[in-house]
């Protein structure tokens, strides 16, 4: 338990009525307080931008009556002269769980739970709009005190549990009063997040994209419920619709999730106020484009302890940069006119708050803006004009400080909430620090007092002899205990003095060891403050902040690369067209396209690349990838057509860069194989450095992942309760879903009213041949089955991916018209791949199935040229055919072969320059170009390596310096990104 550093005057403020007028009173007579209080001689911040110098604040019944430099004060006024100190409106924290315990996690059963555990509520337990913060609210005095001490007077609290969390309550932190006055509003905002409730074990959603889909469906369902006559009750939807008039606060918690949240809100015309993550500065323009207001945490990381160089080597540049750059986040948000409020959310202890804000100010943020972010901005976001300011009629919520709020040596003296006063430190109290002299028994003594109140340090000397001495301050009394100078027979003396602010000296009595009591005055000779001088020096130091790169970690660029006009001369060109492989050929790239192929081409503007002895190919297309995504599987249901990987593209995954180094330019990020009907794909180009949105293909053909076999049956993990558990069940599940989708589509097309169901919409797209299936598949029986199901519903399967037994049904696949995207040589990892053979691709290709070789693996994807070469080794495919398996054929399967996949005039200039025959194990990609922009260059890579090292060195030096200064550090830790495969579930529980 920390020492309580402030004084608490429980019933000091007699004018505060603690009970309502209409309450009967049996313990005395009814009294009515009707006096005014005036706080005079103050610098009053009515708002951060409206300041009254030397003014008076007049309040009554907890409300500001008037303020001004020269105002008339009624006679029945208690006047408090604060002698030139400052008054600030209390701060507001919009994202708080004050007084509301986090619900306890339900113990998990043996088997996953797929259905809801509640009746009469929404079908998903994680949607809890019916929750009301007040039902769980219990005023927490201890936390309130620490909040008050940091300047916070009002918090918006809520039950931090579930995807929809219900309405929050606005609470005034009056530690003296009762809830009757503390609760400013019981319906202050609706809280939403992407995190599941701990009160239910219901599986869905298991991923962030699932949470997004669920939220979208809720909006659709709520709308339908509102419009239609209904026969059942859904208390969740009722509450959700009721709460729609409230401010909607979305706990996104990070830059990338903020964008995801905003996309969901925009779709339904809701503008969320978004809880950020402190990393918004990394791509500030995307944040600005949301047009959202933010709630921003200030939990800036501590420097890492990098003294041990072995450990320091494990630390990523990205983490070090976070430490270095995060304190600039508020300034950068302000510079870009993003409206935001600050929160204490994320701090280990509320008491760190002021220091963090100070740190942000030292990093160039304006103190005035900081005040705005704590007062007027949050008040405005809540549409509440009675808080966050001291205008007439507003709540009398304010702090009294010795000066500028965030200055190091500013003290907070008092915090008033609705007129109720908490004193931390008397503002007229004298500063004890300094040097004193006194004489005792003809001996001269010199006493130095330093340090903070409650924690004073002393140094007592007589002549040059150090004497032991301790000090204790007890409210306005100070007590000293010290020894005499006699070293042989040491005796203890006690001195007590009542503090008197009219004199710098300390006058009191001294108790001698023999019982004698004498008067004694310690005369103050100087009041220099050693610690203060030190701090000033620290503040003067300029902050070194490394520039943000895109992405803001290893191998990012300060400036994004631009498209160029490039002329490749004298290359061996693998066209993938009827021209085949052209020797000594030039290729001209302009405006992102291939514009000329031939010999002796000329272009004045072009940058010439001598490709003599080198091979130029189109960029590699990976039909099956799981890099660059924040989640891969929505495994909470057997169908998840409603989710989309497009929602969770991770543009900062270093695997993008590594794939470029292997000549990959386009990938399909597929949903995983956790369920028969998976989620929708994202088709992206690996434009390293761009935002997730800019990676996505424009007007991309639509794809969805399906899956068959052991994974969807959940054969290799501990679930026995989800249908289907057999291949037989998988077929029936498809027939059921497609039948329902057909009926849905018919109803929709008939013009009847219908409940919008995203899952059915997506399946109807398949039936209408607007969306293509890429299906994870292994054994021949199920491959055959799915083709038959598709034929029954009059559409075709587009691609079988993995398709390791494709060679057994190649003829049937050809007849159906489905393509194959397979591994070169993987097998034996589970029972259903026992008959997988590396000759698969060559056989399929020979039979006439469009055949691609894919990775499904972040390592293999950077060597797909080698994997293609295995089709030559196993089964004797021609080299040109083998090369097409990682370029043109996957482009065909993805319906983008009109743009990429070959070197042809008019196609996108997605090109790779190889030092060798591209199918050779000895080949290296030297340049990888997308739409005429060089995204990987083996020479530039060398420079990037150097700059990574340089930045690491700078940051390590800086952190060592911090440690040396005595700053607290954190132990080295390594954030590990998960390797994604088909079967990967989200790392973090959502």
């Amino acid at each position: 338990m920390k020492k309580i550093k402030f004084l608490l005057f429980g019933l000091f403020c007699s004018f505060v009525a603690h009970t309502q007028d209409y309450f009967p009173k049996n313990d005395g007579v009814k009294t009515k307080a009707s006096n005014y209080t005036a706080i005079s001689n103050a610098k009053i911040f009515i708002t951060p931008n409206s300041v009254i110098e030397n003014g008076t604040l007049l309040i009554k019944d907890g409300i500001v009556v008037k303020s001004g430099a020269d105002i008339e004060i009624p006679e029945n006024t208690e006047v408090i002269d604060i002698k030139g100190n400052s008054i600030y409106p209390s701060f507001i924290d919009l994202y708080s769980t004050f007084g509301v315990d986090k619900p306890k996690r339900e113990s998990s059963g043996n088997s996953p739970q797929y259905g809801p555990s509640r009746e009469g509520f929404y079908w998903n337990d994680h949607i809890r709009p019916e929750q009301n913060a007040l039902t769980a609210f219990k005023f927490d005095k201890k936390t309130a005190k620490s909040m008050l001490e940091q300047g916070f007077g009002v918090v918006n609290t809520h039950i931090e549990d579930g995807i929809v969390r219900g309405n929050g309550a606005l609470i005034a932190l009056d530690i003296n009063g009762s809830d009757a006055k503390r609760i400013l509003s019981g319906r202050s905002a609706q809280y939403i997040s992407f995190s599941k409730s701990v009160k239910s074990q219901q599986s869905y959603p298991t991923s962030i994209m699932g949470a997004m889909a669920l939220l979208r469906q809720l909006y659709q369902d709520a709308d339908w419920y509102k419009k239609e006559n209904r026969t059942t009750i859904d208390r969740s939807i009722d509450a959700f619709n009721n709460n729609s008039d409230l401010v909607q606060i979305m706990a996104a918690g990070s830059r990338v999730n903020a964008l995801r949240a905003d996309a969901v809100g925009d779709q339904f015309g809701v503008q969320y106020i978004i809880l950020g993550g402190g990393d918004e500065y990394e791509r500030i323009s995307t944040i600005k484009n949301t047009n959202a207001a933010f709630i921003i945490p200030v939990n800036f990381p501590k420097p890492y302890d990098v003294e041990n160089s072995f450990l320091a080597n494990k630390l990523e540049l990205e983490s070090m940069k976070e430490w270095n750059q995060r304190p600039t986040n508020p300034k950068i948000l302000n510079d870009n006119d993003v409206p935001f409020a600050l929160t204490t959310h994320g701090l280990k202890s509320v008491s760190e708050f002021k220091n963090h804000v100070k740190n942000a100010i030292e990093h160039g943020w304006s103190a005035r803006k900081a005040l705005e972010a704590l007062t007027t901005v949050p008040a405005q976001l809540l549409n509440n004009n009675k808080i966050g300011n001291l205008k007439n009629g507003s709540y009398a919520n304010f702090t009294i400080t010795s000066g500028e709020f965030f200055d190091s040596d500013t003290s907070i003296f008092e915090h008033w909430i609705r007129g109720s006063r908490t004193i931390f430190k008397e503002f007229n109290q004298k500063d004890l620090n300094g040097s004193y002299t006194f004489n005792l028994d003809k001996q001269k003594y010199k006493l130095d007092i330093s340090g903070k109140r409650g924690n004073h340090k002393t140094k007592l000397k007589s002549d040059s002899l150090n004497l032991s001495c301790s000090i204790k301050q007890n409210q306005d009394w100070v007590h000293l205990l010290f020894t005499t100078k006699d070293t042989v027979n040491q005796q203890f003396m006690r001195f007590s003095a009542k503090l008197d602010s009219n004199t710098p000296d300390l006058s009191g009595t001294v108790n001698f060891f023999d019982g004698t009591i004498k008067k004694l005055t310690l005369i103050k000779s100087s009041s220099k403050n050693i610690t203060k001088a030190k701090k000033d020096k620290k503040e003067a130091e300029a902050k070194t902040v490394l520039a943000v790169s895109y992405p803001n970690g290893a191998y990012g660029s300060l400036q994004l690369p631009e498209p160029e006009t490039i002329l490749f001369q004298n290359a061996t060109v693998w066209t993938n067209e009827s021209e085949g492989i052209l020797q000594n050929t030039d290729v001209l790239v302009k405006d992102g396209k291939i514009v000329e192929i031939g010999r002796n081409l000329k272009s004045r503007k072009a940058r010439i690349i001598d490709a003599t002895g080198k091979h130029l190919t189109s960029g590699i297309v990976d039909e099956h990838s799981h890099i660059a995504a924040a989640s891969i599987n929505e495994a909470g249901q057997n169908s998840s057509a409603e989710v989309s990987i497009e929602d969770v593209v991770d543009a900062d995954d270093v695997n993008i860069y590594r794939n470029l180094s292997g000549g990959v330019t386009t990938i399909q990020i597929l949903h995983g194989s956790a369920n028969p009907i998976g989620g929708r794909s994202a088709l992206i180009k690996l434009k390293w450095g761009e935002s997730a949105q800019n990676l996505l293909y424009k007007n991309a053909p639509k794809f969805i992942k399906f899956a068959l076999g052991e994974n969807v049956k959940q054969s290799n993990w501990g679930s026995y309760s989800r249908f289907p558990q057999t291949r037989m069940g998988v077929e029936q599940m498809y027939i059921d879903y497609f039948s329902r989708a057909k009926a849905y589509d018919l109803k929709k097309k008939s013009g009847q009213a219908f409940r919008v169901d995203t899952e059915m919409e997506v399946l109807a797209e398949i039936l209408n041949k607007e969306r293509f299936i890429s299906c994870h598949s292994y054994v021949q029986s199920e491959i055959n089955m799915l083709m038959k199901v598709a034929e029954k519903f009059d559409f075709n399967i587009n691609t079988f991916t993995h398709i390791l037994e494709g060679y057994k049904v190649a003829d049937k696949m050809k007849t159906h018209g489905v393509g194959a995207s397979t591994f070169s040589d993987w097998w034996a990892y589970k029972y259903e791949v026992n008959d997988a053979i590396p000759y698969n691709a060559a056989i399929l290709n020979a039979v006439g199935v469009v055949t691609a070789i894919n990775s499904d693996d972040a390592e293999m994807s950077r060597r797909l040229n080698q994997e293609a070469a295995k089709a030559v080794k196993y089964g004797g495919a021609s080299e040109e055919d083998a090369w097409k398996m990682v370029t043109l054929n996957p482009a065909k399967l993805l319906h983008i072969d009109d743009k990429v996949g070959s070197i042809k005039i008019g196609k996108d200039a997605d090109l790779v320059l190889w030092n060798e025959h591209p199918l050779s194990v000895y080949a290296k990609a030297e340049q990888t170009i997308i739409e005429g922009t060089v995204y990987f260059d083996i020479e530039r890579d060398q420079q990037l390596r150097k700059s990574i090292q340089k930045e690491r060195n700078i940051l390590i030096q800086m952190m060592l310096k911090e440690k040396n200064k005595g700053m607290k550090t954190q132990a080295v830790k390594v954030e590990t990104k998960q390797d994604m495969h088909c079967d990967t579930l989200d790392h973090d529980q959502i």
Partner: protein
Amino acid sequence: MRIFKIPIITILAVCFTLNAQQTPAKKQMKTIAISGATAHLGNGSLIKNSLVVFDNGTIRYVGKMDASKLNSEIEIIDAKGKHVYPGFIIPNSTLGLIEIDAVRASDDDEEIGTWNPHIRSIIAYNTESKVVETMRPNGVLMAQISPRGGRISGTSSVVQLDAWNWEDAVVKIDDGIHMNWPNTFSRGRWWMGEEPGLNINKKYADELQELNVYFNNAKVHNFKASPGLNLPFEAMKGVFLGHQTLFIHVDDEKGIIDAINFTKQHKIEKVVLVGAYEAYKQTELIKENDVSVLLRRVHSRPNKSDEDYDLPFKLAKKLVDAGVTVALEASGDMERMNSRNLPFYAGTTVAYGLDKEQALQLITLNAAKILGIDAQYGSLETGKSATLFISQGDALDMRTNQLVHAFIDGRNISLESHQTKLWKRYTEKYEGQ
């Protein structure tokens, strides 16, 4: 894509009756000469237009083409334009210990417990594994079969990959003890409220101390006539006597330094680092102490975002340049089926700096030296075993790695497998359509 990672007990009865493995080849009866090929000796040199003669399983001549060495009794294989290599060796492998990862009943690679030096891989090695037979068509003819898990995993043995049973397969029995060095970092168990990601392993010093105590006790037990039976301690004896090699699986720089100091302190003669990702930072120490390295799978990604994208590709070059004896291993995800890509791991090191003959050494003679079988295997030299193969082209490049013949101890082994049979069966099916 692999299987879901949550293990369960599978009661699936797996039936392996479809195709048994190829019949092991008979003993060499006739002298064989391979003429006209480019011979890659495995020791760094190469002979164009060569002649390799072997009988009774042993190489009798390796050199320039010399017609005087031939006679009508000799079976001559005309290999003009082709390449002959010593059989590739895959160390630190679990071939034959697991058939199908996801089928628990077929998994035999990892015993429970922490201190398992007495656990011997060889007796579980399944010569009939369908995975093993797929090694041979790519030139991988020998393997060190190593157990996994625990602090001390157990005892490995070296085998050749064409045998009736494990006794038949043994090339060197119980060649070494495998030990997993304590990690300097440990993964936070977020479900137990720990920080996710990698955090400093606070137990490192304790774990190191446990190792010291264990080794000291093992020594006392073996050399101070301690009474009573102690199978694990007794299994350690060979390591202390220098008969067996101590294979220490360790990746990080500090671990490598600590491990080498540990072996010095315990006077262990034969030490090999396995994995050894950061060995390139301590090559002097490694060389000074006569330690060799089984380098982790070349086809892997850097451990950190900050590292060079091609670091795993060029680690071999860094170590070779520094004079360290290094061979390649392939443990990790899908290691068994991927072991047939061993030649291409070596090929990739060529793209990143080594020359082809140096790269070949990493999977032939260096591996043989590290496993202590170089007197008999690992290179094409007179007097050594005729464990070799003929490829149509460069065997380190997948386009040209096409085996026409392979021999183990002179036995002309089958290059067929379950997979080639299926290939032929279905090719015939479609040709008939």
